[in-house]
Each structure stands twice: as structure tokens, then as C-alpha cells.
């Protein structure tokens, strides 16, 4: 793999708190700290994996990067610009450059639109090619994601889950982004089809020089696709390291618990499971670099 040196995404102490309860005067009484002080960097051309238990804040981080949420505090710098400081108008070019693919290939595509319209929709928003020129471009994109020109006028229900995910990918790529937030893009797919989609994401990455944030539950796939991985727990990052380093030498007890829970597809390999329960009320400290590129949140 090439060296990734140029910083593309720089997340600084990001917080996103949701209001859970209000008193009779409408004052906030109860907050849910979905993301509570997260910092990490992604270099251009790199894939950064994000793993952690359900509710740990992975998708919320992704949605903040896409500015689908306004964050409570913190900064997201993209290609040197502080997005948190920008209004909707100044954000528009970044809304083209940063695209997303979501988990559910069933609900994320409008059932009333055909493939050409679906893929054309983001192109409309950003005023890209129209008419014949667009049709040709979309057809070539379809072929690029393993679908066919004949599929241009078909509707989502005529496709399998894996094919719908290819349509979502083509849709995201239609506006030539440089960064794609992939939120569990393969979780709803069959094992045999997951590998098809992962290979395709890797090919597209090297062809178009894409940078990925890859959020996932499946720890073996995350290891396969990511250059570096961040482990989230309770709205905080507890460990960040290059993929192999994280799997070979996990340091945080939660990372160890997580990795030891992966069922190994070999009947003769029995993994020693370690458990970890966070002490109630304990605070997760900030990340600290313990060896080059390996960060852990431990005293």
C-alpha cells in the first residue's frame, strides 16, 4: 500500500449530546452523551475503521462528519477547512465531496425512482451532467459497480440486497466525492456477497483515490479493509492503532473483550474469552500514544 501522509479529516474533541428529558420550563434535565470527546485523523487514501458495541456512538460520529447533525462542540477539519464554522451555503461543495453509504440497502433507496433517477439525484443537487451525457456516465458507473446498462430503468425492488448496495455505492460515487462514510455497508448482506462488495470498495478506492470511514460490527471484515482502526465505547475512543497491531496487540480491556468474542470459523480453535465491565461512574481518559501510532485510553 502507498504511504498516506496528507491529512484529510481531522476530528478534534467532537461531542454530540442529545436531550433525553426536559422539565416543565423546557430546560434540559437529562442528556445522552452519544459522542463525548472524540479525536482522530484520517489521511487521504486511507481507510479508517470504527468498531464498538451497539450504541457506542459510531454512527453518530459518521453523521457529524456528514454534518447531518450539528455537533454540540468540537471541530471537524476537512482538507484544512473547519467545517464546524461553515454555514449551509459554504458547506455545499463539501456536501459533494463527502458522501455516504448506509447499512440498509432496502430502506435507503426511494422505491419510486428507477436506477437512473436514483443515481442522478445527487448529480441534480450538485448541478452535474444532464441528459444524454448523464445517461452515458451513469451507465458506465453501473458497469463499474458490477451492474449493467439494462438496469438503468429498473426499480429497487427488482434487485437483491447486494445489488441494491451496489446502486447505493454508484449513487455516492456519481458526484465524484473524495471521502465516503460507509456505515455498516455490508452488515445486511450474505457472507458470499459481502466479499463482492468489499472487493469492489477496494477497487474503487484505488481507482478514484477515495478515503473511507468504515463503520462495522464484523470485526474480521473491518480488519481486512482498514489501514487503521478506532475502538469506541460509551461515546469515547478507547484505542486507535494500525489494524494488524490492534488485533495482534490489543491493550485496552474492552478491545481485548471485543476481539476475544469473535467466533473463529475453525472448530478446533477455541478462543479464550475475556470479559470486561466498566466500573460504574468511571471516566474514560483521553487517548495516549504508547508506541508509534498506537493510542490507548488508559491511566
Amino acid at each position, binding site marked *: 500500500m502507498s504511504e498516506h501522509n496528507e491529512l484529510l479529516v481531522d476530528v478534534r474533541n467532537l461531542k454530540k449530546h442529545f436531550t433525553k428529558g426536559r422539565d416543565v420550563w423546557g430546560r434540559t434535565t437529562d442528556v445522552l452523551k452519544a459522542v463525548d470527546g472524540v479525536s482522530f485523523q484520517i489521511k487521504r487514501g486511507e481507510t479508517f475503521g470504527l468498531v464498538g458495541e451497539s450504541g457506542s456512538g459510531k454512527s453518530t460520529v459518521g453523521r457529524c462528519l456528514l454534518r447531518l447533525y450539528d455537533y454540540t462542540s468540537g471541530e471537524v477539519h476537512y482538507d484544512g477547512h473547519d467545517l464546524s464554522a461553515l454555514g449551509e451555503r459554504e458547506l455545499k461543495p463539501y456536501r459533494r465531496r463527502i458522501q455516504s453509504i448506509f447499512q440498509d440497502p432496502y430502506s435507503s433507496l426511494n422505491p419510486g425512482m428507477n436506477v437512473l433517477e436514483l443515481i442522478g439525484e445527487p448529480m441534480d443537487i450538485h448541478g452535474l451532467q444532464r441528459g444524454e451525457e448523464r445517461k452515458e456516465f451513469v451507465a458506465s458507473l453501473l458497469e463499474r459497480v458490477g451492474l449493467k446498462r439494462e438496469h438503468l430503468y429498473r426499480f429497487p425492488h427488482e434487485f437483491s440486497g447486494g445489488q441494491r448496495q451496489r446502486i447505493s455505492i454508484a449513487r455516492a460515487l456519481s458526484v465524484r466525492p473524495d471521502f465516503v462514510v460507509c456505515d455498516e455497508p455490508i452488515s445486511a448482506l450474505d457472507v*458470499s456477497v459481502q466479499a463482492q462488495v468489499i472487493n469492489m470498495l477496494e477497487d474503487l478506492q484505488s481507482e478514484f483515490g477515495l478515503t473511507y470511514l468504515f463503520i462495522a460490527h464484523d470485526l474480521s471484515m473491518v480488519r481486512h479493509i482498514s489501514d487503521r482502526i478506532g475502538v469506541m465505547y460509551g461515546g469515547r475512543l478507547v484505542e486507535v492503532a494500525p489494524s494488524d497491531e490492534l488485533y495482534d496487540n490489543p491493550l485496552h480491556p474492552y478491545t481485548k473483550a*471485543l476481539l476475544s468474542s469473535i467466533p473463529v*470459523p475453525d*472448530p478446533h480453535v477455541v478462543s479464550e474469552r475475556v470479559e470486561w465491565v466498566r466500573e460504574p461512574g468511571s471516566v474514560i481518559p483521553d487517548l495516549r500514544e504508547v508506541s508509534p501510532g498506537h493510542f490507548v485510553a488508559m491511566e
Partner: protein
Amino acid sequence: MAERLLSVENLKVSFFTAGGENQAVRGVSFHIDAGETVGIVGESGSGKSVTAKALMALTPPPGKMVAGDIKFRGESVSRLSDKDWRKIRGNQIAMVFQDPMTALNPVQKIGKQMVEVIRRHRGLNQTAALSEAIEMLRQVGITEPERRVNQYPHEFSGGMRQRVMIAMALSCQPELLIADEPTTALDVTIQAQILELLGRLKERSNTSIALITHDLGVVAQVCTRVIVMYGGMVMEEGTVEDIFYRPKHPYTKGLLRSLPKRESGFKERLVPIEGTPPNLLDPPPGCPFMERCPHAMETCAALPKVTEVSPSHRYMCWLAEGAEEARVQ
């Protein structure tokens, strides 16, 4: 020889929909012995859940079991009345479904629901049933069960609800537990707890488990035998060692090959199975895997024979005939 608990012969289930006959299960045969944990694997739509529901006589309309026979302890149960089935369900055969929310009553406290089930199936009195419910919740890893029994399902997380379902199923001490993707929606750490729980259950009782999953890791870790389904049929069946170390069917081999390797240091390209599963509204008459099989040949347009590799291991593929194998490998 272990006792034959369940045997399924040539099971066929179809859904008669506006679009035509959806042949979800097209002639499935297998058996489960006392004490076994049998994994049923395959892609989504391969007929796993439909098979599981048919075993409990719970096929929803417009679905119908159109052929086959199911025997429980040697007795045919395919044609029992609803009344007789109610005695078997829960008592002898219990099921844990893919979606735990649909199976729990949202407006009744967890404890009350469990007590009802335990009293119905085990004839315990209220007090004994409640302490049994609390004990079962503790065993499935729910902390403070004394407090939890007074809560409603929506106060439990998805993983906890699934554990409640398992606790309920186990509290009836069934002879066969059918678990349909019981951990698919859960975090790996909670999945690991539940799989350990199922493992401990085996040590204490002779309950057989049919575990439906598409996670080959789960199968390798907890099952003794595996049934591989595709397109409504059984492609291969064997012990976990047969399936993981000596797979014969191209579909089984493809599934295993598509998993990412665990070694570090270099990134190997994944090897997917190209293509998509067949449409069961108009299934191909021959091998269901033909469209995606790298070894497909003309003969495959006819339904392959089942070949026995050893008493525990069989598969359905024309390659077993030998003639073509040399050419394609």
C-alpha cells in the same frame, strides 16, 4: 447410538402468492439426535426459517407444507391436530425466533410472562415459578433479575430481550430447542455470552439444539453437525470437521473461501461467490447453485444425486461422479 429425536423427510413448503408458487423449501431431509447441536447455514432466502417453522407446524399463510414427513421420537407429527401440537410446542420442542420483540407481549411485565409459561409447562405454583423465572434470567446473564422481572419488554435492550426469550424457552426444559438466528442482531460480546450459555446448557441437560445462522464462526464454535442449505435444498451435510476441513460441495467451499483470512502482514484479496441466489418463484430444475458455480457443466441442468462420502457426510453435486473433476480443477 444416540436416540433419533427428529427426522425430516423430503419436506416441501411453498407460499402461494399472487406472483405464483414460491417454492421456499424443495425437498429437505435431515435428522437430529438427542444431545446434538446441529447448525443450519445458508444465505438469506435459502429456506432456513421456513424449515424451522415447518418443524413446529407454524408455517404462516399463504404458506403450506406440500409434501414430506416430520417424525419426533419416531412418531409422525406432520398431521397432528392443533390441540396436540399445543402440547408439543414449548414442552418438547421450543423455538427462539429471529425477532424477539414479536414474541413478547409489550404490555405485560417480563416476570408475569415467564411465570405464565413456566406454570403452563411445568405445573409449578406461582411462587416456585417466579423463583424459577428469576433463576433462569440470572443464568442467561441478566443482572439484578429480582428487579428486572417487574419491568416491561421495552425497558430491555435487544440483547436482553433475546436472552429473555432463551430463558423462557429453556425454562420449559424442552427436548429440542430451535433457535433461528438468535444472535444475529446482537453485539459480538453478547453473542459470545449467549453461545456460552447454550454450551453450558448442553453440559447439564440432553437438550438438542437446531441453530440457524449464517455465521460460520458461530457454527464452528458451537455445533457438532452442520446442514448447508441453498435454494430450498440441502447441499451438504456433515460433522463440523467434515464441513470445515473436508468440504465437498462447491457452495460450501465458496462460503468458506469468502471469509477474510486472519493472518496479519499482508492483505489478501477476498474470494467472493459471484452472482446472486436463485429466484424461487421459478427455480432452475437442476442444481440450484448452477448459475454461480465455477464448475457448472451441462449435466448440472438436471438435479444432482446425493452422494455419501462417509456415514456422517453427504452432498448433492454432479462432481461426485468424478468424471469432470479432473478437468475443472
